């Protein structure tokens, strides 16, 4: 059987200042067979959306090869449709006109166009909303329009870019089950689906195969086959087993990478920091210290019970790992000795623990503090550190890293920062 889609050794870079290039995707391989839903799972910034755009023909790789039904992809191909995270509906077109858009380009007779559009609207459950404008609809209904608009062109491949992540929990679940049901009944005129997501349970619920993406650069780390019949039961032990397995794989690799970064010779300021506030860290530590966890928790459990999405939980856990306030291992998170002390401490002691952790494990904080100590004025402009960071990471990551270190530095009172003057200093404002 011919594969719907073949991605081989794909490499994609983005130009960066000074003629350098940033590697976003490196040696990515992927196939999509008929009747499959394949999930691309990874945190934001791991390049999975970039891969989706390469498949869609919206961008081209710098290396490697992509083919759709045996034909090289050189631009947006007929038969590949996409559902967007932000819906990407045209606000000035009605629901019907939005759905018809893809058909108009095919230059079909108006009657056939209308019939097909109405059929798709009917199928996706938008009956009665044909003449509404997107702004009159709720988020869930808008994304249904997004689905109808993609389905109406009878694509062979449907690409979904985090289609449920801007919806509330209930709406998202409702839409997922509807979609899985339509797919299971064979009612969708689609041969294969690629779903980009950062939600582990969503991937296990919907996909036949899940590819785990690692970031910096984006790579397919491992593939997990989900061997469960549809419809799947979130509470069944097998389901939980798959979720656990993915958590373990994802955390193991991340922790490994973090340790590599920290151990690298001359380990300096080049570790990108993801923006996590001290309050979030304190909140998670308190939750972990309290019963029923008593210092140790299963990541899926705590994600579920604290109502934290993976994309929210992982950065906090990672920051705690970095500061050695907790250990993350095998899908578990365990408070360290320091972490436990932090939980019991009052605000001033917490600031002290935090400040010591910064001085021991965050080279950037040490660096800033040292520069401030050495200068006679005890102050330094933001630009100075930003330029240094940009030698090692993208502009965006540098801004984010600096923002994080400012918030950590302020909490620990290691240094202060005046946003108006864009100036780091040792003094507290008078």
């Amino acid at each position: 059987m011919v594969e719907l889609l073949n991605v081989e050794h794909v490499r994609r870079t983005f130009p960066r200042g000074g003629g350098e290039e940033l590697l976003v995707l490196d040696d990515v391989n992927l196939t999509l067979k008929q009747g499959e839903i394949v999930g691309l799972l990874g945190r934001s910034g791991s390049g999975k959306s970039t891969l989706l755009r390469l498949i869609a023909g919206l961008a081209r790789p710098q290396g490697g090869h992509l083919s759709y039904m045996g034909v090289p992809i050189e631009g947006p191909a007929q038969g590949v449709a996409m559902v967007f995270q932000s819906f990407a509906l045209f606000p000035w077109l009605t629901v019907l006109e939005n759905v018809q858009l893809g058909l108009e380009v095919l230059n079909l007779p108006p009657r056939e166009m209308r019939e097909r559009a109405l059929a798709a609207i009917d199928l996706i459950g938008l009956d009665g909303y044909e003449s509404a404008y997107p702004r009159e609809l709720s988020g869930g209904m808008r994304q249904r329009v997004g689905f109808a608009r993609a389905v109406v062109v009878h694509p062979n491949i449907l690409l979904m870019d985090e289609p449920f992540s801007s919806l509330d929990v209930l709406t998202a679940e409702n839409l997922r089950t509807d979609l899985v049901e339509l797919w299971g009944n064979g009612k969708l005129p689609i041969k294969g689906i690629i779903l980009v997501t950062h939600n582990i349970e969503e991937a296990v619920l919907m996909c036949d195969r899940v590819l785990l993406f690692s970031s910096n650069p984006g790579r397919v780390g491992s593939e997990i086959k989900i061997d469960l019949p549809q419809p799947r039961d979130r509470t069944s032990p097998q389901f939980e087993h798959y979720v656990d397995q993915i958590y373990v794989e994802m955390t193991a690799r991340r922790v490994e990478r973090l340790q590599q970064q920290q151990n690298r010779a001359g380990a300096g300021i080049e570790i990108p920091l993801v923006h996590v506030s001290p309050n979030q860290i304190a909140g998670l530590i308190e939750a972990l210290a309290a019963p029923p966890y008593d210092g140790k928790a299963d990541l899926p459990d705590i994600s579920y019970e604290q109502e934290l999405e993976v994309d929210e939980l992982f950065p906090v856990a990672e920051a705690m790992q970095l500061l050695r306030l907790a250990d993350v291992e095998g899908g578990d998170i365990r408070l360290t000795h320091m972490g436990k002390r932090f939980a019991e401490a009052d605000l001033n002691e917490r600031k002290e623990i935090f400040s010591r952790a910064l001085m021991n494990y965050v080279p950037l904080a040490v660096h800033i503090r040292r520069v401030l100590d050495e200068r006679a004025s005890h102050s330094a402009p933001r630009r100075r550190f930003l330029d240094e960071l940009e030698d090692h990471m993208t502009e965006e990551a540098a801004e984010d890293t600096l923002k994080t270190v400012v918030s950590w530095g302020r909490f620990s009172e290691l240094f202060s920062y005046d946003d108006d003057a864009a100036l780091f200093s040792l003094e507290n404002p008078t």
Partner: protein
Amino acid sequence: MKILPPVSIEARRLLPSGWDVLAAILVVGFLVAFADVSRFLVHPLSSISGNYLKLDPADLPGYALRTALRMLIAMGASLVFTFTYATWAAKNPRAGSLLVPLLDILQSVPILGFLSVTVVWFLSLSPGRILGAELACVFAIFTGQAWNMAFSFYQSLRTVPEELEEAGRMFGLNAWARFWRIEAPFATPSLIWNMMMSMSGGWFFVTVAEAISVGNTNIALPGIGSWIAVAIAQQDLPAIFEAIGTMMVVILIYDQLLFRPLVAWADRFRVSSEPSSEEAPQSWALTVYRRSRLLDLITAPFLQVMRWSYYWHPPSFGLKGAVPEVNNRLSAIIWYALLTVLGVFAAWRILLFFTHANLSWNDAATAVGYGFITLARVMVLIALASIVWTPIGIYVGLRPKLTAIVQPVAQFLAAFPNNLLFPLVVSLIVFWNASPDIWLSPLIILGTQWYILFNVIAGATTMPQELRDAAENFGVRGWLWWRRVALPAVFPFYVTGAITASGGAWNASVLAEVASWGKTTLHAHGLGAYISDATTAGNFNRVVLGIIVMSFFVLVVNRLLWRPLYWYAERKFRLT
């Protein structure tokens, strides 16, 4: 929807870039070349004098119609310019790096002062005929309207949501179809808002440009502006009131029949993620248009042609434009060579002009000195208008019922060509024998102060209720309330309003610093008067010098004062 500040404000850097300098050289070179050509055209022209214009009220509707038509034609030209120039600048980064600074310089040229030169040039196109004067008049309005429309369109094109573009490409829309189905609709609300703003400024330009005298050439096109000029010459107060009344009616009709419906119609193009809580703009005229089949009948063929045009080429499934792969080194060489030639040519023209111009350093010093006087005048008046209108604007903006009444009035007053009111003031100054240096000054802010008022009102209405509740809860009252709550909340809006007001004031100074009533002509000292006198004397060299100096003042003030203030306000006080 907010008014866009001039291009100079948009970027954050303080020092001019190489592109800014090139743009300035090109614009000055163009002005100079224009003046050089026109200089030799002045004398052979027969004048189209205003003598035949009789102040008969029965003719007023006809004049008003002609004035309104000129506006419409200029608006059409501005739209064509917007769609081409702005699109080119947005789609082609190489061109954009020159075209955007060029807009900035053009926006800073007080084109009213240059009217004389353009009029002469256009008259030479069709000597002795009325057509040349008509063209000159339309051109003057165009230069008052086009720049900010083009800039708004450019900005919209640059901010089309990436995913909308991607969706369009996924469904196989080619570049032409994407422009009309995605980019242009997306840009529509802001473009229409800026058209309204342009129109406001345009009424001022049209009434000025209709009646102009250069040296011995007097031109008076039939229209409200010429009516006013004749009325001033004849000291006919009732005629002036008639013209003011007629102008009000014309603006009201434009507003009700053209802009209200447009704004209401364009509301659907607003991209907002959340269902909006604001009321959608309403227009009775739009409802009438929609219910009548006439409009459908008229637009249907155009729409059909547009639909066909999307299929002209097979839908582009290629990657054209997605990744620039073609080695366009050759086109780069040609482009930069062209720019170099143009730049050198412009610089040479400027040099030539000034070596032949009989202008000494004294002249330059005089112009700059007058520039400082006008600068002081503008700044003092902006400050005065701010002190008056900011508290009033806040008071009004916090009371929705009052806002509903005052806001349209303020917008109307901003649109009203205030030069029609000049004679009233001037006649009073003559009557009381007051000092023109002081009492002519308020005229330059007469029309543009309203921008401050209605921006502040808009700012006050967007102040979150919770902030006001919090202030009240903590008992923040009196001066503290103004200092800590109200003034910071409206500050970003105020700055935008003040920028617009100051830009308009420079332009108005050309008209306001020299004013006449019958045989009496009042002179204030200032750069505006300098330009105005040079025009009357037919001395193009001084006109050009004055214009260049004034443009320079506008640019420098924008960069050194308004730009930092704008970004400070955006960063510190924007409540979103």
